[in-house]
């Protein structure tokens, strides 16, 4: 096991332990249940906005889309409009499918040396796991609105009903929670088991995986095994979002672990690779139309220089050029 894995795991376990101890001490419950979550939410939004503005300021003078298909050409050559967009409408389509279906990840290949040559093979599992992970995370996040809204809106109930479609056990099992946990486990296993991927994996890769594993794990543990007082927990969360924070009796210390790991994720988010959530919208290799051959894109900060013809240049420097033995068009 590499040091990166051990350090990330230790970091998450220590964070969880701190919150568990803090959540068991009545005086510290308001720190872990109120002030740290509030601070984390503030850091998340400010950090997010900071990163976005920093990107927005970066100049992107020229068209640099990565193209993956035939560009717009003669009328009898078929253009691949989504993979090589030439209009804003097509760019919007391309961005939409990139964000919603991870099209570029779909093209993931793995390379292997077979015999004496290298072979590339389409590899779909990362794409599938990524889809499973992101969508189950979205469903879990959305379902959590039941703790933050009163009355609970109908759309949240619909998602709950769909999510509990299989009607397994009581409290009924939500598929998204299980899928989320399994997908993170797969993404971790993939990093460890593929040597090339393991070689390039850093703490910044393992830490968020363990963090999300910890968050999902404490959530599943509270719902299906520990059984916590949901009414008390909703009292706490409603207090948070109505800015009248309070710590009810009967809140399990495991909830503080859950909350503290989420706060950690929120603080960590804007300053890590997780910012691809905002970054995907601003990727110049995806969000630009490939129209360099139709439109002239002038670098906006080019200095405003006078245009000089060769004739004028020679007129200005003729004598010096003759002196230096350079050829000139006119002798005088």
């Amino acid at each position: 096991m590499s040091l990166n894995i051990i350090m990330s795991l230790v970091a998450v376990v220590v964070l969880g332990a701190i919150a568990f101890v803090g959540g068991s001490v009545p005086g510290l419950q308001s720190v872990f249940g109120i002030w740290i979550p509030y601070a984390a939410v503030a850091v998340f939004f400010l950090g997010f906005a900071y990163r976005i503005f920093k990107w927005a300021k970066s100049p992107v003078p020229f068209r640099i889309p990565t193209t993956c298909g035939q560009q717009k050409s003669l009328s009898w050559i078929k253009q691949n409009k989504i993979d090589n967009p030439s209009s804003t409408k097509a760019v919007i389509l391309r961005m939409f499918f990139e964000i919603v279906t991870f099209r570029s990840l779909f093209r993931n290949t793995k390379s292997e040396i077979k015999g004496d040559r290298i072979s590339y093979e389409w590899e779909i599992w990362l794409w599938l796991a990524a889809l499973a992970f992101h969508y189950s995370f979205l469903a879990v996040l959305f379902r959590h609105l039941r703790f933050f809204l009163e009355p609970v809106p109908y759309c949240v109930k619909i998602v709950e009903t769909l999510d509990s479609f299989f009607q397994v056990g009581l409290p009924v099992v939500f598929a998204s929670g299980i899928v989320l946990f399994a997908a993170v486990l797969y993404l971790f296993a993939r990093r460890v088991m593929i040597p090339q991927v393991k070689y390039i994996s850093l703490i910044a890769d393992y830490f968020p995986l363990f963090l999300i594993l910890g968050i999902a794990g404490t959530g599943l543990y509270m719902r299906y095994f520990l059984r916590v007082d949901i009414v008390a927990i909703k009292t706490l969360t409603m207090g948070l979002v109505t800015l009248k924070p309070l710590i009810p009796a009967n809140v399990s210390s495991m909830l503080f672990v859950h909350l503290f790991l989420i706060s950690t994720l929120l603080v960590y988010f804007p300053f890590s690779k997780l910012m691809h959530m905002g970054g995907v919208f601003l990727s110049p290799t995806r969000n630009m139309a490939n129209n360099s051959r139709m439109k002239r894109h002038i670098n906006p900060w080019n200095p405003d220089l006078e245009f000089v013809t060769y004739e004028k240049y020679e007129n200005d420097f003729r004598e010096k050029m003759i002196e230096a033995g350079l050829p000139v068009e006119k002798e005088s």
Partner: protein
Amino acid sequence: MNDKIKIIAGLAIFVLIFTCPFWINGGKAKDVPKPVLSEKALAAKTCVLPKDEMAKNHMQLLDGWRNSVVRNEQRVYIIKDANGIEKEYDMSLSNTCLACHTNKAEFCDKCHEYASVNPYCWDCHVDPNVKEASL
């Protein structure tokens, strides 16, 4: 310039969506529901398990009962109460829980609405206290 406006608009939408619990509730939390005990329950004084355990684990108890009846044909639940006296319950959702908690709307549903749980049990099981002639 044009892009800056789009980016700021996108950021504003993001913040608006992700902070929705703060502004949808309008800063007002509804009172925490207090399930009302029916007269029958008040007379009985205790539930099947201690109150604290019931509040957290009643669905797991029901799951155990359901499995016991439907899979093992075991309908009698025997448990010692706080005073060490053995009590027998018929493992039945409608005939035991709701026979004592005769006010489902004021009791079960109070909590469930707040916690957004919609037990699908009532697709099949009836609330015996509701005398409406359906069908």
